[in-house]
Every structure is written in structure tokens, then in C-alpha cells.
């Protein structure tokens, strides 16, 4: 029992190994779930399991959609600035 407890506490003293790759972005999903649940818990009139779960799921989906839209827009801006703009500037007469 003590060994188990020590191991559990020890896990909180060393960071996990998470590589810097696109898969690490999946860590945002549990956070978005938490945000959606807590926000809806403060907003709904009365908490009942299925309506509350549905409202939280809708908010979770909405946040994800907006994150994806923001990511696509930022990717587009980066693509224009790094790929298109240098060639346009080099062809410019100015």
C-alpha cells in the first residue's frame, strides 16, 4: 500500500515525456471538455444528466470548430507570408 502511494505521489514530481509533434495537440481535448462542463454548470438552470450532457457536448463541438477555423486561418496567413509573399516581392519592380 505504501509503495503504491509513494509511486502515485512520485508520478506528480516528474513531468511526462510528451514530444513536440502534431499528436500533442490532442491534449487540448480533455481541457475543452473541462471548460465546456464547468461553463455549462454555471449557466444551466437545473442540472439533469442528459440535457446537461447534450449542452456540454454542443459547447465542446463549438469550441473545437472555432479552434479548427482559427488554425486554418492562421495556417493560411503563414502560408501566404512564407511561401507566396517572398516570390511576389522578388518579382516586384519596386
Amino acid at each position, binding site marked *: 500500500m505504501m509503495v503504491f502511494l509513494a509511486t502515485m505521489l512520485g508520478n506528480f514530481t516528474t*513531468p511526462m515525456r510528451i514530444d513536440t509533434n502534431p499528436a*500533442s495537440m490532442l491534449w487540448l481535448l*480533455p481541457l475543452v471538455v*473541462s471548460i465546456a*462542463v464547468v461553463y455549462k*454548470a*454555471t449557466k444551466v438552470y437545473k442540472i439533469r444528466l442528459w440535457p*446537461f450532457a447534450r449542452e456540454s457536448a454542443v459547447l465542446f463541438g463549438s469550441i473545437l470548430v472555432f479552434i479548427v477555423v482559427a488554425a486554418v486561418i492562421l495556417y493560411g496567413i503563414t502560408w501566404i507570408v512564407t511561401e507566396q509573399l517572398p516570390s511576389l516581392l522578388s518579382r516586384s519592380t519596386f
Partner: protein
Amino acid sequence: MAQSWKDNHALFLISIGALAWLVPGAGHFALNERTRGLVIFVSIVLTFLVGIYVGSVGVIDPVHARPWYAAQVMNTPLVKLLGRIGATGNYRVFGRATEIGQIYTSIAGLLNLLCIVNAVYTAHLRHVGEAQA
């Protein structure tokens, strides 16, 4: 005649706010919103613990990560104790795990701030409603 705890409106609101800060969800629990308090408690504590688990206790650092700490301390005043441990520098923090840990623990704190404000506002509305009735 001494006023009761609920009759002193300002003291009542401050107590609810302090309770909600001390234990996430306790403010709502004290207002008889038991399910709401439980949902808030589980969500915020779980988010905070995941952040500590991923990034280690070193992500709570009042010396080198002061802006993050300001948000983290909104979880509960007990975070100050963890801050003392983190500030010793004995716990390694590095890389993506630190970023994720800081984000999780700070967002948990900001969510609790939202719940504190909501609990105080709910208590105020109830008092106003009772006064008008």
C-alpha cells in the same frame, strides 16, 4: 441584536466567495446547489490534477512563472503550499509537458474564478429575491 450570518448580506457574499475559493464548488454546495457544486468540484480538481501529473509539481512556480501562478492560485489557497515546493527548484520542469501542465492548472484556476463569481452572484440574486418576496 446581532444579525444572523445570512442577514448580513456583505458578510454572506464574502463567505460564499471565500468558501468557493477554498474548495472548488463549495460555494454552490453551500447554496444548496449540490449537483452543480459536485460537477464543478470534480471537473476543476481533475483538470488541476491532470496538469500537475503531466507537468510535475514544478509547474507551480511563484518565482519563475509568476503570471501562470496568479491563475493557478485561483484554484484554492492550498496552491500556495505547492508553490513553496515548486519554488525550491528541486523538481524538473521542461518541454511540452511543462506547457501543458501550466495551461491545465491555470485554466482550472480561471474556471474556478468563474465559479466563485457565479456563486457570489447567485447568492446575491437569492438575497434580493428573498428581500422582495
